[in-house]
Protein backbone atom coordinates (compact mmCIF):
# COMPACT_ATOMS: atom_id res chain seq x y z
CA UNK A 1 0.00 0.00 0.00
CA UNK A 2 1.42 3.38 -0.94
CA UNK A 3 1.34 5.88 1.90
CA UNK A 4 0.51 9.43 1.05
CA UNK A 5 0.73 12.32 3.42
CA UNK A 6 -2.54 14.25 3.37
CA UNK A 7 -0.75 17.49 2.69
CA UNK A 8 0.74 16.01 -0.44
CA UNK A 9 -2.62 15.50 -2.04
CA UNK A 10 -3.80 19.04 -2.56
CA UNK A 11 -1.52 22.07 -2.34
CA UNK A 12 -2.66 24.41 0.41
CA UNK A 13 -3.26 27.48 -1.75
CA UNK A 14 -5.49 25.40 -4.00
CA UNK A 15 -7.66 23.93 -1.34
CA UNK A 16 -8.02 27.24 0.44
CA UNK A 17 -9.18 29.00 -2.71
CA UNK A 18 -11.39 26.03 -3.45
CA UNK A 19 -13.10 26.36 -0.11
CA UNK A 20 -13.87 30.03 -0.74
CA UNK A 21 -14.97 29.11 -4.18
CA UNK A 22 -17.53 26.60 -2.96
CA UNK A 23 -19.03 29.27 -0.71
CA UNK A 24 -19.50 31.84 -3.44
CA UNK A 25 -19.90 29.81 -6.59
CA UNK A 26 -23.31 28.43 -5.71
CA UNK A 27 -24.91 31.83 -5.31
CA UNK A 28 -23.17 33.22 -8.36
CA UNK A 29 -24.19 30.40 -10.69
CA UNK A 30 -27.79 30.29 -9.55
CA UNK A 31 -27.97 34.05 -10.00
CA UNK A 32 -26.51 33.89 -13.48
CA UNK A 33 -28.87 31.08 -14.45
CA UNK A 34 -31.83 33.04 -13.11
CA UNK A 35 -30.85 36.03 -15.22
CA UNK A 36 -30.42 33.85 -18.27
CA UNK A 37 -33.75 32.14 -17.68
CA UNK A 38 -35.58 35.46 -17.25
CA UNK A 39 -34.07 36.72 -20.45
CA UNK A 40 -35.80 33.89 -22.29
CA UNK A 41 -39.05 34.59 -20.50
CA UNK A 42 -39.96 37.85 -22.19
CA UNK A 43 -42.79 37.05 -24.59
CA UNK A 44 -42.12 38.55 -27.99
CA UNK A 45 -43.83 38.54 -31.36
CA UNK A 46 -41.14 36.22 -32.69
CA UNK A 47 -42.44 33.33 -30.59
CA UNK A 48 -44.89 32.49 -33.37
CA UNK A 49 -43.92 30.83 -36.62
CA UNK A 50 -43.16 33.05 -39.61
CA UNK A 51 -46.35 34.02 -41.35
CA UNK A 52 -48.60 33.03 -38.46
CA UNK A 53 -51.35 35.59 -37.96
CA UNK A 54 -53.74 33.72 -35.63
CA UNK A 55 -54.46 34.27 -31.94
CA UNK A 56 -51.39 34.41 -29.71
CA UNK A 57 -52.86 32.98 -26.52
CA UNK A 58 -55.27 30.29 -25.32
CA UNK A 59 -58.73 30.98 -23.81
CA UNK A 60 -57.12 31.40 -20.36
CA UNK A 61 -54.75 34.07 -21.66
CA UNK A 62 -51.63 31.87 -21.70
CA UNK A 63 -49.30 32.79 -24.58
CA UNK A 64 -48.52 30.23 -27.27
CA UNK A 65 -45.31 28.24 -26.94
CA UNK A 66 -42.82 29.15 -29.66
CA UNK A 67 -42.67 27.11 -32.86
CA UNK A 68 -38.97 26.63 -32.10
CA UNK A 69 -39.71 24.96 -28.73
CA UNK A 70 -42.63 22.88 -30.01
CA UNK A 71 -40.42 21.46 -32.75
CA UNK A 72 -37.23 20.92 -30.73
CA UNK A 73 -38.49 19.39 -27.48
CA UNK A 74 -40.27 16.19 -28.37
CA UNK A 75 -41.03 12.96 -26.59
CA UNK A 76 -40.98 10.53 -29.49
CA UNK A 77 -39.41 7.30 -28.28
CA UNK A 78 -39.47 5.71 -31.74
CA UNK A 79 -36.61 8.07 -32.56
CA UNK A 80 -34.88 8.89 -29.28
CA UNK A 81 -35.42 9.17 -25.55
CA UNK A 82 -33.63 12.52 -25.77
CA UNK A 83 -36.18 15.26 -26.43
CA UNK A 84 -33.66 17.51 -28.16
CA UNK A 85 -32.48 14.84 -30.60
CA UNK A 86 -35.81 13.95 -32.18
CA UNK A 87 -35.90 16.91 -34.58
CA UNK A 88 -32.62 15.84 -36.21
CA UNK A 89 -33.57 12.17 -36.44
CA UNK A 90 -36.89 12.54 -38.24
CA UNK A 91 -35.62 14.17 -41.43
CA UNK A 92 -35.50 10.95 -43.48
CA UNK A 93 -38.69 9.45 -42.05
CA UNK A 94 -41.03 9.08 -45.05
CA UNK A 95 -44.60 10.27 -44.50
CA UNK A 96 -45.90 10.34 -48.06
CA UNK A 97 -47.77 8.42 -49.35
CA UNK A 98 -49.63 7.62 -46.14
CA UNK A 99 -52.92 5.99 -45.46
CA UNK A 100 -54.90 5.36 -42.35
CA UNK A 101 -57.13 2.32 -42.00
CA UNK A 102 -60.32 2.58 -39.94
CA UNK A 103 -61.84 -0.80 -39.18
CA UNK A 104 -63.16 -3.12 -36.49
CA UNK A 105 -66.70 -2.78 -35.17
CA UNK A 106 -67.91 -0.36 -37.85
CA UNK A 107 -70.58 -0.59 -40.51
CA UNK A 108 -68.42 1.02 -43.18
CA UNK A 109 -64.66 0.32 -42.78
CA UNK A 110 -62.52 2.68 -44.85
CA UNK A 111 -58.95 3.50 -45.71
CA UNK A 112 -58.16 7.19 -46.06
CA UNK A 113 -55.16 8.89 -47.58
CA UNK A 114 -53.97 12.06 -45.85
CA UNK A 115 -55.49 14.02 -48.74
CA UNK A 116 -58.88 12.29 -48.18
CA UNK A 117 -58.92 13.59 -44.62
CA UNK A 118 -59.22 17.17 -45.90
CA UNK A 119 -62.94 16.50 -46.30
CA UNK A 120 -63.24 16.64 -42.51
CA UNK A 121 -62.17 20.29 -42.75
CA UNK A 122 -59.27 20.67 -40.32
CA UNK A 123 -59.58 23.86 -38.24
CA UNK A 124 -57.23 25.72 -35.88
CA UNK A 125 -57.55 24.77 -32.19
CA UNK A 126 -55.34 26.14 -29.41
CA UNK A 127 -54.82 23.51 -26.70
CA UNK A 128 -52.67 23.18 -23.62
CA UNK A 129 -50.45 20.08 -23.72
CA UNK A 130 -49.48 18.69 -20.32
CA UNK A 131 -46.74 16.06 -20.33
CA UNK A 132 -46.74 13.39 -17.62
CA UNK A 133 -43.18 14.62 -16.90
CA UNK A 134 -44.68 17.85 -15.46
CA UNK A 135 -43.93 20.30 -18.25
CA UNK A 136 -46.47 21.86 -20.57
CA UNK A 137 -46.92 23.88 -23.75
CA UNK A 138 -49.70 25.87 -25.42
CA UNK A 139 -49.98 24.72 -29.03
CA UNK A 140 -52.02 26.03 -31.97
CA UNK A 141 -52.94 22.74 -33.66
CA UNK A 142 -54.82 22.29 -36.89
CA UNK A 143 -57.09 19.30 -36.89
CA UNK A 144 -60.61 17.92 -37.03
CA UNK A 145 -62.63 16.32 -34.25
CA UNK A 146 -62.28 12.53 -34.27
CA UNK A 147 -66.08 12.18 -34.14
CA UNK A 148 -66.31 13.40 -37.73
CA UNK A 149 -64.16 10.47 -38.83
CA UNK A 150 -66.00 7.97 -36.61
CA UNK A 151 -69.37 9.16 -37.90
CA UNK A 152 -68.09 8.52 -41.41
CA UNK A 153 -67.41 4.81 -40.68
CA UNK A 154 -70.41 4.36 -38.33
CA UNK A 155 -69.40 2.37 -35.24
CA UNK A 156 -71.73 -0.55 -34.50
CA UNK A 157 -73.59 -0.71 -31.21
CA UNK A 158 -71.03 -3.24 -29.89
CA UNK A 159 -68.15 -0.78 -30.15
CA UNK A 160 -67.11 0.57 -26.75
CA UNK A 161 -63.46 1.60 -27.22
CA UNK A 162 -61.18 2.96 -29.93
CA UNK A 163 -57.69 1.57 -30.41
CA UNK A 164 -55.02 3.55 -32.27
CA UNK A 165 -51.81 2.11 -33.72
CA UNK A 166 -48.69 3.94 -34.92
CA UNK A 167 -46.64 2.97 -37.93
CA UNK A 168 -44.11 0.17 -37.51
CA UNK A 169 -41.09 1.28 -39.52
CA UNK A 170 -37.91 0.11 -37.77
CA UNK A 171 -35.82 1.06 -40.81
CA UNK A 172 -36.62 4.71 -40.32
CA UNK A 173 -37.45 4.75 -36.60
CA UNK A 174 -34.17 3.77 -34.96
CA UNK A 175 -35.49 2.80 -31.52
CA UNK A 176 -38.15 0.48 -32.93
CA UNK A 177 -35.18 -1.85 -33.36
CA UNK A 178 -34.85 -1.95 -29.58
CA UNK A 179 -37.15 -3.38 -26.94
CA UNK A 180 -37.41 -0.03 -25.16
CA UNK A 181 -41.20 -0.32 -25.49
CA UNK A 182 -43.46 -2.83 -27.24
CA UNK A 183 -43.68 -1.61 -30.82
CA UNK A 184 -45.67 -0.33 -32.57
CA UNK A 185 -47.06 2.23 -30.14
CA UNK A 186 -50.69 1.60 -29.22
CA UNK A 187 -53.17 3.90 -27.49
CA UNK A 188 -56.84 3.81 -26.71
CA UNK A 189 -59.86 5.85 -25.70
CA UNK A 190 -63.30 4.97 -24.42
CA UNK A 191 -65.80 5.56 -27.23
CA UNK A 192 -67.44 8.52 -25.45
CA UNK A 193 -64.01 10.12 -24.95
CA UNK A 194 -63.23 9.56 -28.61
CA UNK A 195 -66.54 11.13 -29.62
CA UNK A 196 -65.96 14.23 -27.47
CA UNK A 197 -65.64 17.39 -29.52
CA UNK A 198 -62.29 18.32 -27.92
CA UNK A 199 -60.66 15.08 -29.13
CA UNK A 200 -58.70 16.09 -32.20
CA UNK A 201 -57.05 14.34 -35.14
CA UNK A 202 -54.18 16.69 -35.87
CA UNK A 203 -52.61 17.31 -39.28
CA UNK A 204 -51.05 20.74 -38.79
CA UNK A 205 -49.59 23.20 -36.32
CA UNK A 206 -49.13 27.00 -36.46
CA UNK A 207 -50.98 27.00 -39.82
CA UNK A 208 -48.39 24.69 -41.37
CA UNK A 209 -48.30 20.97 -42.09
CA UNK A 210 -47.59 19.04 -38.91
CA UNK A 211 -43.80 18.76 -38.44
CA UNK A 212 -42.55 15.16 -38.40
CA UNK A 213 -41.19 15.43 -34.85
CA UNK A 214 -44.67 16.39 -33.65
CA UNK A 215 -46.30 13.30 -35.14
CA UNK A 216 -46.80 13.91 -38.87
CA UNK A 217 -48.67 13.18 -40.94
CA UNK A 218 -51.46 12.55 -38.44
CA UNK A 219 -51.63 12.31 -34.66
CA UNK A 220 -54.17 12.28 -31.88
CA UNK A 221 -54.50 15.14 -29.36
CA UNK A 222 -56.65 14.70 -26.25
CA UNK A 223 -56.02 17.94 -24.36
CA UNK A 224 -57.35 16.85 -20.95
CA UNK A 225 -55.07 13.81 -20.85
CA UNK A 226 -51.30 13.52 -20.42
CA UNK A 227 -49.35 13.98 -23.62
CA UNK A 228 -48.42 10.32 -24.08
CA UNK A 229 -52.06 9.55 -24.95
CA UNK A 230 -51.53 11.67 -28.08
CA UNK A 231 -50.27 8.86 -30.30
CA UNK A 232 -48.25 9.99 -33.33
CA UNK A 233 -47.93 8.81 -36.95
CA UNK A 234 -51.19 6.84 -36.83
CA UNK A 235 -51.83 4.14 -39.45
CA UNK A 236 -54.73 2.25 -37.89
CA UNK A 237 -57.86 3.07 -35.92
CA UNK A 238 -59.98 0.14 -34.72
CA UNK A 239 -63.33 0.18 -32.99
CA UNK A 240 -63.29 -2.60 -30.39
CA UNK A 241 -65.33 -3.94 -27.47
CA UNK A 242 -62.49 -4.19 -24.95
CA UNK A 243 -60.24 -1.69 -23.21
CA UNK A 244 -57.06 -1.47 -25.31
CA UNK A 245 -53.78 -2.24 -23.57
CA UNK A 246 -51.77 0.89 -24.31
CA UNK A 247 -48.01 0.80 -24.81
CA UNK A 248 -47.21 2.66 -21.58
CA UNK A 249 -49.60 0.43 -19.60
CA UNK A 250 -47.68 -2.56 -20.94
CA UNK A 251 -44.40 -0.93 -19.91
CA UNK A 252 -45.48 0.09 -16.38
CA UNK A 253 -49.14 -0.37 -15.51
CA UNK A 254 -48.60 0.97 -11.98
CA UNK A 255 -47.33 4.29 -13.34
CA UNK A 256 -49.35 4.86 -16.51
CA UNK A 257 -53.06 4.13 -16.48
CA UNK A 258 -55.55 3.79 -19.30
CA UNK A 259 -57.27 7.09 -18.56
CA UNK A 260 -54.21 9.26 -17.89
CA UNK A 261 -56.40 12.28 -17.22
CA UNK A 262 -54.43 15.32 -16.09
CA UNK A 263 -55.12 15.47 -12.37
CA UNK A 264 -53.15 17.56 -9.86
CA UNK A 265 -54.54 15.44 -7.00
CA UNK A 266 -53.33 12.08 -8.31
CA UNK A 267 -49.55 11.97 -8.34
CA UNK A 268 -47.36 9.83 -10.51
CA UNK A 269 -46.00 7.16 -8.14
CA UNK A 270 -42.57 8.75 -8.34
CA UNK A 271 -43.25 12.48 -8.69
CA UNK A 272 -45.91 15.08 -7.95
CA UNK A 273 -48.40 16.19 -10.59
CA UNK A 274 -49.56 19.24 -8.61
CA UNK A 275 -47.45 21.71 -10.59
CA UNK A 276 -45.92 22.00 -14.02
CA UNK A 277 -43.45 24.19 -15.84
CA UNK A 278 -44.79 25.95 -18.88
CA UNK A 279 -42.03 25.77 -21.47
CA UNK A 280 -40.64 29.29 -21.94
CA UNK A 281 -41.49 30.36 -18.39
CA UNK A 282 -39.49 30.07 -15.19
CA UNK A 283 -41.85 29.75 -12.23
CA UNK A 284 -43.90 26.59 -11.89
CA UNK A 285 -47.65 26.96 -12.31
CA UNK A 286 -50.41 24.95 -10.67
CA UNK A 287 -51.70 22.08 -12.76
CA UNK A 288 -55.42 22.40 -13.46
CA UNK A 289 -57.93 19.56 -13.10
CA UNK A 290 -58.37 17.92 -16.52
CA UNK A 291 -55.73 20.41 -17.71
CA UNK A 292 -58.26 23.24 -17.48
CA UNK A 293 -60.95 21.43 -19.51
CA UNK A 294 -62.93 20.32 -16.45
CA UNK A 295 -66.12 22.10 -17.52
CA UNK A 296 -66.09 20.30 -20.85
CA UNK A 297 -65.10 16.77 -19.82
CA UNK A 298 -65.80 16.18 -16.12
CA UNK A 299 -69.21 14.70 -17.00
CA UNK A 300 -67.45 11.80 -18.76
CA UNK A 301 -66.15 10.56 -15.41
CA UNK A 302 -69.07 11.07 -13.04
CA UNK A 303 -69.06 8.45 -10.28
CA UNK A 304 -65.61 7.15 -11.20
CA UNK A 305 -62.81 6.94 -8.64
CA UNK A 306 -60.12 8.90 -10.47
CA UNK A 307 -57.46 7.74 -8.04
CA UNK A 308 -58.13 4.13 -9.03
CA UNK A 309 -58.79 4.89 -12.68
CA UNK A 310 -55.70 7.03 -13.15
Amino acid sequence: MIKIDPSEITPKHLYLSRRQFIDSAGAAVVGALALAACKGNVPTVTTAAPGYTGPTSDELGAPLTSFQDITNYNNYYEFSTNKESVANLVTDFPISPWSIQVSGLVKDPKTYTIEDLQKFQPEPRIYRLRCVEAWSMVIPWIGFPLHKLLDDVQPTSDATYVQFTSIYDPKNMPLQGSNLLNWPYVEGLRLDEAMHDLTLMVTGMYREDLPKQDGAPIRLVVPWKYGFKGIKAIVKIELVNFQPDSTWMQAASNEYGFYANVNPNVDHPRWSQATERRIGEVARIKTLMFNGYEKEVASLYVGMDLKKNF
Partner: protein
Amino acid sequence: MKIQSKIFDQWFPILVHIACLLPIPWLILNAWQGNLTADPIRAALLRTGKIALELLILSLACTPLNNIFGFKPALRVRRALGDYSFLYTSLHFAIFVSLDYGFDLQLITNELVRPYALVGLIAGLLLIPLAITSFSPWPKRLGKNWKRLHNLVYGINLLAALHFILVVKQGVVEPYLWLILIIFLLVLRLPPIRHFLSGFFKHQE
Protein backbone atom coordinates in the same frame (compact mmCIF):
# COMPACT_ATOMS: atom_id res chain seq x y z
CA MET B 1 2.44 2.35 -17.02
CA LYS B 2 4.27 4.71 -14.69
CA ILE B 3 4.45 8.25 -15.89
CA GLN B 4 7.56 9.79 -14.41
CA SER B 5 7.58 13.16 -16.07
CA LYS B 6 7.94 15.92 -13.53
CA ILE B 7 6.12 18.39 -15.74
CA PHE B 8 3.18 16.03 -15.95
CA ASP B 9 3.10 15.64 -12.18
CA GLN B 10 3.01 19.39 -11.81
CA TRP B 11 0.39 20.05 -14.43
CA PHE B 12 -1.91 17.11 -13.94
CA PRO B 13 -3.71 18.42 -10.82
CA ILE B 14 -4.02 21.90 -12.31
CA LEU B 15 -5.58 20.47 -15.47
CA VAL B 16 -8.00 18.47 -13.34
CA HIS B 17 -9.04 21.61 -11.46
CA ILE B 18 -9.60 23.48 -14.70
CA ALA B 19 -11.58 20.59 -16.16
CA CYS B 20 -13.73 20.43 -13.04
CA LEU B 21 -14.49 24.16 -13.14
CA LEU B 22 -15.12 24.60 -16.85
CA PRO B 23 -18.69 23.22 -16.81
CA ILE B 24 -19.79 26.24 -14.76
CA PRO B 25 -18.97 29.01 -17.28
CA TRP B 26 -20.12 26.60 -20.00
CA LEU B 27 -23.51 26.19 -18.31
CA ILE B 28 -23.92 29.93 -17.82
CA LEU B 29 -22.94 30.63 -21.43
CA ASN B 30 -25.44 28.04 -22.69
CA ALA B 31 -28.17 29.47 -20.51
CA TRP B 32 -27.39 33.00 -21.62
CA GLN B 33 -27.43 32.06 -25.30
CA GLY B 34 -30.67 30.14 -24.86
CA ASN B 35 -28.98 26.85 -25.81
CA LEU B 36 -30.23 24.98 -22.79
CA THR B 37 -33.19 23.17 -24.42
CA ALA B 38 -36.76 24.37 -24.24
CA ASP B 39 -36.71 23.67 -20.50
CA PRO B 40 -33.48 25.33 -19.32
CA ILE B 41 -34.13 24.82 -15.62
CA ARG B 42 -34.60 21.11 -16.02
CA ALA B 43 -31.53 20.99 -18.28
CA ALA B 44 -29.44 22.86 -15.69
CA LEU B 45 -30.70 20.50 -12.98
CA LEU B 46 -29.88 17.43 -15.05
CA ARG B 47 -26.51 18.72 -16.08
CA THR B 48 -25.29 19.73 -12.61
CA GLY B 49 -26.60 16.45 -11.20
CA LYS B 50 -24.88 14.42 -13.86
CA ILE B 51 -21.56 16.22 -13.44
CA ALA B 52 -21.79 15.67 -9.66
CA LEU B 53 -22.33 11.95 -10.28
CA GLU B 54 -19.53 11.72 -12.84
CA LEU B 55 -17.03 13.43 -10.56
CA LEU B 56 -18.05 11.21 -7.68
CA ILE B 57 -17.43 8.15 -9.84
CA LEU B 58 -14.11 9.56 -11.03
CA SER B 59 -13.05 10.03 -7.41
CA LEU B 60 -13.93 6.37 -6.92
CA ALA B 61 -11.73 5.41 -9.88
CA CYS B 62 -8.62 7.06 -8.42
CA THR B 63 -7.68 4.33 -5.98
CA PRO B 64 -7.89 1.46 -8.49
CA LEU B 65 -6.00 3.58 -11.03
CA ASN B 66 -3.17 3.80 -8.53
CA ASN B 67 -3.38 0.31 -7.03
CA ILE B 68 -3.82 -1.59 -10.23
CA PHE B 69 -2.26 0.56 -12.93
CA GLY B 70 0.29 2.38 -10.77
CA PHE B 71 -1.07 5.78 -11.86
CA LYS B 72 -0.04 7.66 -8.74
CA PRO B 73 -1.14 11.18 -9.79
CA ALA B 74 -4.74 9.97 -9.50
CA LEU B 75 -4.36 9.99 -5.72
CA ARG B 76 -3.40 13.65 -5.76
CA VAL B 77 -6.72 14.66 -7.32
CA ARG B 78 -8.98 12.17 -5.56
CA ARG B 79 -10.10 14.53 -2.83
CA ALA B 80 -10.46 17.47 -5.22
CA LEU B 81 -12.77 15.38 -7.40
CA GLY B 82 -14.90 14.59 -4.36
CA ASP B 83 -15.03 18.25 -3.37
CA TYR B 84 -16.02 19.34 -6.85
CA SER B 85 -18.70 16.68 -6.84
CA PHE B 86 -20.01 18.30 -3.67
CA LEU B 87 -19.89 21.71 -5.35
CA TYR B 88 -22.05 20.47 -8.24
CA THR B 89 -24.36 18.65 -5.81
CA SER B 90 -24.84 21.96 -3.98
CA LEU B 91 -25.57 23.74 -7.25
CA HIS B 92 -28.00 20.99 -8.22
CA PHE B 93 -29.85 21.39 -4.92
CA ALA B 94 -29.75 25.19 -5.11
CA ILE B 95 -31.31 25.16 -8.58
CA PHE B 96 -33.98 22.70 -7.38
CA VAL B 97 -34.92 24.90 -4.43
CA SER B 98 -34.68 28.30 -6.11
CA LEU B 99 -35.25 28.25 -9.85
CA ASP B 100 -37.29 25.06 -10.01
CA TYR B 101 -39.50 25.41 -6.95
CA GLY B 102 -39.16 29.16 -6.30
CA PHE B 103 -38.43 28.63 -2.55
CA ASP B 104 -42.01 27.36 -2.08
CA LEU B 105 -41.47 25.35 1.10
CA GLN B 106 -44.71 23.42 0.81
CA LEU B 107 -43.96 22.27 -2.73
CA ILE B 108 -40.36 21.49 -1.83
CA THR B 109 -41.22 19.37 1.20
CA ASN B 110 -43.95 17.64 -0.78
CA GLU B 111 -41.34 16.73 -3.39
CA LEU B 112 -38.55 15.86 -0.96
CA VAL B 113 -40.51 12.98 0.60
CA ARG B 114 -40.62 11.13 -2.73
CA PRO B 115 -38.16 8.27 -2.98
CA TYR B 116 -36.09 9.78 -5.82
CA ALA B 117 -35.69 13.10 -3.99
CA LEU B 118 -35.17 11.49 -0.59
CA VAL B 119 -32.39 9.26 -1.91
CA GLY B 120 -30.73 12.26 -3.55
CA LEU B 121 -31.11 14.34 -0.41
CA ILE B 122 -29.53 11.66 1.76
CA ALA B 123 -26.63 11.28 -0.68
CA GLY B 124 -26.11 15.04 -0.66
CA LEU B 125 -26.30 15.34 3.13
CA LEU B 126 -23.81 12.50 3.56
CA LEU B 127 -21.40 14.35 1.28
CA ILE B 128 -21.33 17.36 3.64
CA PRO B 129 -19.15 15.82 6.37
CA LEU B 130 -16.85 14.39 3.73
CA ALA B 131 -16.47 17.76 2.02
CA ILE B 132 -15.78 19.52 5.33
CA THR B 133 -13.28 16.97 6.59
CA SER B 134 -11.45 16.80 3.28
CA PHE B 135 -9.68 20.01 4.28
CA SER B 136 -6.92 20.42 6.83
CA PRO B 137 -6.77 19.99 9.78
CA TRP B 138 -9.40 17.25 9.67
CA PRO B 139 -7.46 14.41 8.01
CA LYS B 140 -4.79 14.59 10.69
CA ARG B 141 -7.17 15.28 13.53
CA LEU B 142 -9.42 12.33 12.69
CA GLY B 143 -6.58 9.91 12.07
CA LYS B 144 -7.88 6.43 11.37
CA ASN B 145 -11.47 7.58 11.61
CA TRP B 146 -10.93 9.86 8.64
CA LYS B 147 -10.62 6.87 6.36
CA ARG B 148 -13.60 5.20 7.99
CA LEU B 149 -15.68 8.33 7.50
CA HIS B 150 -14.60 8.70 3.90
CA ASN B 151 -15.53 5.12 3.11
CA LEU B 152 -19.07 6.52 3.14
CA VAL B 153 -18.36 7.60 -0.41
CA TYR B 154 -18.99 4.02 -1.56
CA GLY B 155 -22.56 4.15 -0.31
CA ILE B 156 -23.01 7.71 -1.56
CA ASN B 157 -22.04 6.63 -5.07
CA LEU B 158 -24.68 3.91 -5.01
CA LEU B 159 -27.32 6.31 -3.65
CA ALA B 160 -26.47 8.87 -6.33
CA ALA B 161 -26.95 6.29 -9.08
CA LEU B 162 -30.21 5.13 -7.48
CA HIS B 163 -31.39 8.77 -7.35
CA PHE B 164 -30.81 9.01 -11.11
CA ILE B 165 -32.55 5.67 -11.78
CA LEU B 166 -35.63 6.71 -9.81
CA VAL B 167 -36.12 9.91 -11.76
CA VAL B 168 -36.04 8.61 -15.34
CA LYS B 169 -38.87 7.01 -17.26
CA GLN B 170 -38.83 3.33 -18.20
CA GLY B 171 -36.44 2.37 -20.92
CA VAL B 172 -33.82 5.03 -20.25
CA VAL B 173 -30.66 2.96 -19.73
CA GLU B 174 -28.08 5.64 -18.93
CA PRO B 175 -28.36 5.60 -15.11
CA TYR B 176 -28.04 1.82 -15.10
CA LEU B 177 -24.76 2.09 -17.00
CA TRP B 178 -23.43 4.45 -14.32
CA LEU B 179 -24.57 2.00 -11.63
CA ILE B 180 -22.73 -0.86 -13.35
CA LEU B 181 -19.58 1.27 -13.53
CA ILE B 182 -19.83 2.06 -9.81
CA ILE B 183 -20.29 -1.59 -8.90
CA PHE B 184 -17.32 -2.46 -11.13
CA LEU B 185 -15.14 0.13 -9.35
CA LEU B 186 -16.24 -1.23 -5.98
CA VAL B 187 -15.52 -4.81 -7.00
CA LEU B 188 -11.98 -3.73 -8.00
CA ARG B 189 -11.44 -2.88 -4.33
CA LEU B 190 -12.08 -6.42 -3.10
CA PRO B 191 -8.65 -7.60 -1.87
CA PRO B 192 -8.38 -10.81 -3.95
CA ILE B 193 -9.36 -9.04 -7.14
CA ARG B 194 -7.14 -6.07 -6.41
CA HIS B 195 -4.14 -8.29 -5.70
CA PHE B 196 -4.70 -10.42 -8.75
CA LEU B 197 -5.04 -7.43 -11.08
CA SER B 198 -2.14 -5.43 -9.67
CA GLY B 199 0.06 -8.53 -9.94
CA PHE B 200 -1.15 -9.07 -13.48
CA PHE B 201 -0.35 -5.54 -14.61
CA LYS B 202 3.03 -5.46 -12.82
CA HIS B 203 3.86 -8.66 -14.65
CA GLN B 204 3.08 -7.02 -17.94
CA GLU B 205 5.54 -4.17 -17.43
